[in-house]
């Protein structure tokens, strides 16, 4: 049981390796900007939750409750003129913009750690993939912000805000006007990209190992057929990637991928239609063929 759980955690970590690498890259570059007590508190929350399984379900609600109560008392301290005995301790400078910026920045840079830990301890594949997707979304913004920092004057908060604004602008122009706003005035460094590509390959190995080594139940399945999925899936990915190469602009890429996904889903749906067949009964003379 412990051995199986350990194998599952290792497999989950392999799947989450792009997020882990990106998180390491971001943390090593924002080390001088984050507010350390808050950073460590946020890191500790998912660890506590998974180390104490009996009371783990109370950890996040309690954390939200303490945070809300703290900031409520800070606001109350601002509003109330007299300094009461308890309120005097809740005097965080929330009217100071720099403080608030650093606080928000610390929160968003520390949040992916929660996704990593929750994903590592997760029992279900769809949750691990969801944490991978959400974690990458959060971290890739920060990677862009870090790499744009030198172009934008060196203030990481400004770069972070600018990167998010660019992302929003890109989405807007892509969906409403059919082209991306930023036509590669900025490109992520090759070194980071190469390392991330290796992390994605490790993640694919993790996904394959998940299906082989992690059992979500005691029923046996035949693993021979798993090769069909990866073989055909790989072939179609190559075809779609080749087709994307002919696309000029993100909108056309989006269209090609959307069509490929739609065709796959229709084919999937048609192949999954189960008619209610009952099994036939074997004749009694057929048993003699077994040589009994």
């Amino acid at each position, binding site marked *: 049981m412990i051995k199986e759980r350990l194998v599952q955690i290792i497999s989950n970590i392999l799947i989450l390796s792009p997020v882990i690498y990106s998180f390491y890259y971001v943390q090593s570059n924002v080390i001088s900007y984050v507010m350390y007590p808050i950073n460590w508190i946020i890191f500790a929350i998912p660890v506590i939750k998974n180390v104490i399984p009996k009371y783990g379900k109370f950890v996040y609600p309690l954390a939200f409750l303490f945070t809300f109560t703290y900031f409520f008392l800070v606001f109350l301290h601002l509003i109330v003129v007299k300094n009461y005995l308890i309120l005097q301790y809740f005097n965080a400078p929330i009217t100071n913009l720099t403080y608030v910026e650093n606080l928000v920045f610390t929160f968003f840079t520390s949040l992916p750690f929660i996704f990593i830990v929750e994903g590592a301890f997760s029992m*279900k594949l*769809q949750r691990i993939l969801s944490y991978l997707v959400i974690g990458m979304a959060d971290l*890739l913004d920060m990677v862009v912000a870090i790499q744009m920092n030198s172009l934008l004057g060196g203030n990481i908060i400004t770069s972070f805000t600018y990167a998010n604004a660019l992302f929003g602008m890109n989405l807007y122009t892509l969906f409403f006007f059919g082209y991306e706003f930023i036509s590669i005035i900025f490109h992520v460094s090759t070194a980071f990209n190469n390392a991330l590509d290796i992390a994605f390959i490790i993640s694919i190995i993790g996904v394959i190992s998940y299906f082989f080594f992690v059992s979500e139940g005691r029923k046996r399945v035949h693993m021979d057929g798993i090769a069909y*999925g990866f073989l055909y899936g790989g072939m179609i990915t190559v075809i779609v990637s080749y087709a994307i190469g002919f696309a000029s602009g993100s909108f056309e890429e989006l269209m090609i*991928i959307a069509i490929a996904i739609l065709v796959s889903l229709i084919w999937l749906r048609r192949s999954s239609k189960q008619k209610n067949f009952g099994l*036939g009964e074997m004749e009694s003379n057929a048993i003699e063929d*077994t040589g009994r």
Partner: protein
Amino acid sequence: MIKKTGYAVIAALIYGIFESIIYSVYGFEFLTVFFLLIFFSVVLNIIAFNNRIGKNLKYIKVRRELQNDVMRKKDKTKVNLYFRNDSRQKLYFNYFDTLSDVFSLYGDYSGFVSIKPGQVIEKHYEIAPNSIGKYKVGPIKIYSEDPMRLSFIQMVSEKIDEVKVGPSSSDTFTQRSERLSNFIFTTGIHRSAKAGQGYNFFGVRQYNESDDFRHVAWTKYGILNGDDLYVKEWEEERQIDVLFLIDYSIGTNIGDQNRRLYDTFLASVINASYIIFKNRDGVGYILHSSVHDIFIPPVKSSKVVNKLERAVAEIRPEGTFSISSATESIRRNLRKNAMVLTLMSPHYAILDKDLVPKDVLSGKQQYNYIMDPRGYYVESDNNAIMDLTETLYNSERARLETVARAYNHLGLRVQVTNEGTILPKMIADYTTGRMANRGA
């Protein structure tokens, strides 16, 4: 069929693909390739599974063979399962034979099968029923999952066999044993060539001239005066029929997997029957509830026990029970005079203030037993629950005693008994009734 997990994984991957398209602007092209590869691998895996296994699973033929479909409680019976693959593909699936939880199972009643085209595979298992009645075996279900466990296919063979379970032969010890101790419940046995015309010693009286000289009690000669003579008096033994009325309502369906109240009733009744047969008396049965009213007329041979076993193997306890309806059933079915022994469950032993003697008295000599439910509920290891249960048992016993007294006031002989004392009490009452020369 795609599982919820499958839909969730596909949804997460589609979201990842679209997000990666946005980020590919910054140079993260491999992100898109990664999510596309995982997505198409998952989808094609499910499609390949549906086309290879899913479409061919319906060509599996199954067969179940039971060694016998009439069995006794606790006796093991062998069951053979056969699977044949009539398709052209090698198939794999998990199977299980649906069985009631009254059966203890040994062997391959569920498992995994990998079967080549044309191959026949055998699986064997044994079943041992823990309760009497009629039960179903089947249907056989087979199901297969894809390697990523995101979809599955299930097929059912609607082959259902019915199994009839009679009382256990190990419960009816009185049939087999001829030990002297088995006769402790019977006294005064006198086997004569004519059943029902034997004699029991009654006493001695003074001899007079009309008496048969063969019956002189020579051991008493001259005991008072030196020449006084006495003769033995004999009491004619009459044949009596005994009718067991068994409460077969849902109230008797209490207990655990290995021990049920209706099992206890039947075992006690059958044991008592064999003792009664030794006295050359007839035994009959009524299985009574609001749903069942099965009358087996009294017969002096043990074949009537076989009839009872066949009857109980066909049914299960159902319905409600009331003493007034049981009395009505006795009046309707029993024409001859007989002794009636009634076994009642505690659930339907209730005080009905509207009852009058004519509702409960059948006109026959009747002895009624209400079973104490102690021992038929699952015991807990928790001390607090044990104490509470003890209190409940005591209050239930007090209630049953009250009900028994109420029926006694109406003229019906009712007593509360338990598993250990029901057989001795029945035999004691039977013996008393016999010796009092009641019956036919």
